[in-house]
């Protein structure tokens, strides 16, 4: 499973990415998780299973959907989960969305 996170400058998602990697390892999930500023994320998106946006760039969702050509799901992370860096919930959401 490959998860791409994107936010404004790739700073705050890089905090989240560490927590998510730890959480995935703890749960024994084989996951590649990356965090990037949106533009870079879209450049590197090939091969990823899902694109998750930080809530601060929720307005870019439509554009991101167009950019990935509907090939993979694009979701906005819930504000509370993002703020509390709730890695467990975000990973669970990602898995549910990919399998949906």
């Amino acid at each position: 499973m490959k998860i791409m996170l994107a936010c404004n400058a790739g700073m705050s998602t890089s905090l989240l990415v560490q927590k998510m990697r730890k959480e995935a390892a703890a749960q024994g999930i084989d996951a590649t998780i990356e965090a990037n500023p949106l533009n870079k994320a879209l450049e590197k998106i090939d091969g990823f299973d899902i694109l998750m946006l930080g809530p601060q760039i929720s307005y870019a969702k439509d554009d991101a959907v167009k950019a990935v050509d509907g090939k993979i799901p694009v979701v906005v992370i819930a504000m509370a989960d993002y703020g509390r860096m709730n890695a467990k919930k975000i990973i669970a959401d990602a898995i549910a969305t990919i399998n949906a």
Partner: protein
Amino acid sequence: MAEEVEEKKSFLDKFAEVSAKVGNQVHLRSLRDAFATMTPIYILAGIAVLINNVVFPLFLADDALKAAQYWGNAITLGTLNFSAIILAGLIGYCFARNKRFDNPIACVVVGIASLVIMMPQTVTATIDAKAGTTADISGAFLTSSTGTNGLFAAIIIGLIATTIFIKFSSIEKLKINLGEGVPPAVGDSFNVMTPMLITLSIMALVSALLFGLFSTNLLAIIAVAVTAPLKNIMNAGPLAVVIIYTFANLLFCLGIHQSTISGVLAEPILTVLIVDNMATFAAGGTIPVDHYMNMQIVNTFALIGGSGCTLMLLFDTFLFSKNETSRDIAKLSILPGIFNINEPVIYGYPIVYNLPLIIPFVVVPDLLIAATYGLTCIGLISPCVVMVPWTTPVLLSGWLATAGDFRAVIWQVIEIAASMAIYLPFMKISERAQAKQLENASEED
């Protein structure tokens, strides 16, 4: 009552929606992306300027100092004094990417070539200042065209040129088909040849007309008609900047990043001002009053712990809060907060849609912008002359931005104390409101 709340909500939603639309507009977004890509070379220039003008003079003098400063001057030449050229290429690239045009590198070429096409073909050099003799020299570029003074010309010309270029590139008839079996790279270069030829010819025609009819050039026109008025608005007191950041920070309280507004309306011109200051300082000049307001006033003095100066809310929480949830989120947020990253605070504490905390989140930065600008004007702290990354921790950032003025560090200490005092009552109100909500919720159960 309920209706009123609904109306307020829809107004805020509308505000968020319009801001997002503006922030998403392709030209403005390309402008923001290009400046963001450009930032590392400005930071590098800042380091070079600091070392050249603050560190080297500490232990070197005369010829040895001059020899050592050649290093920093070389960096200034390649970064600050060439930044318009670099930006013209970057903006072409970013615009192409955002337009999903399949040949962004061609747009880099068009952007740079178009900017240079608009430059004066001869420069006037003074031979004898006393006698007033001058000579026109061809084959030379002025750093006032290629450097920080040309940044707005680079943006405008770069965007216009690549827009025209992309338009012409979409016309199938203009594509030269070399047939099958031709390597794609070769095919691509032929495909863009005709559109590029047309675009650059149009640019050159404009340049020739401006020179022939009015003996001027587009860079000079943009400097007078665009750059100068924008600089003046930003420096006619702190009002313009305060208004922009009020809306920007309010937007963040609705969950959308403040740079959606500030990155378009304020940051380009404020960045030009600080970059100007770096160039002036590197050349040993005095910073003019109309450059006192610049990017560092915001990023160094009004972004302590991130947007809204939330570091002080965290300090208040550690010292005065008994709320376990708040303390947990503060613990999680303090380390990124020191480096001015505060999404955990904004979404986790939370600030978003939390009225008691929205007030200080918007007011504190406004006050600090105005006060820092005022203190600079009356000479109590030195004007900012170095662009430091926005992730630089407080106290260090003030010292670096002012090229080593300790009064700026003392001011930051005062800022911390004052902001803690402002945040404290609002934090208490917020906690009381949250406790009440919990109570109500449990009553309903």
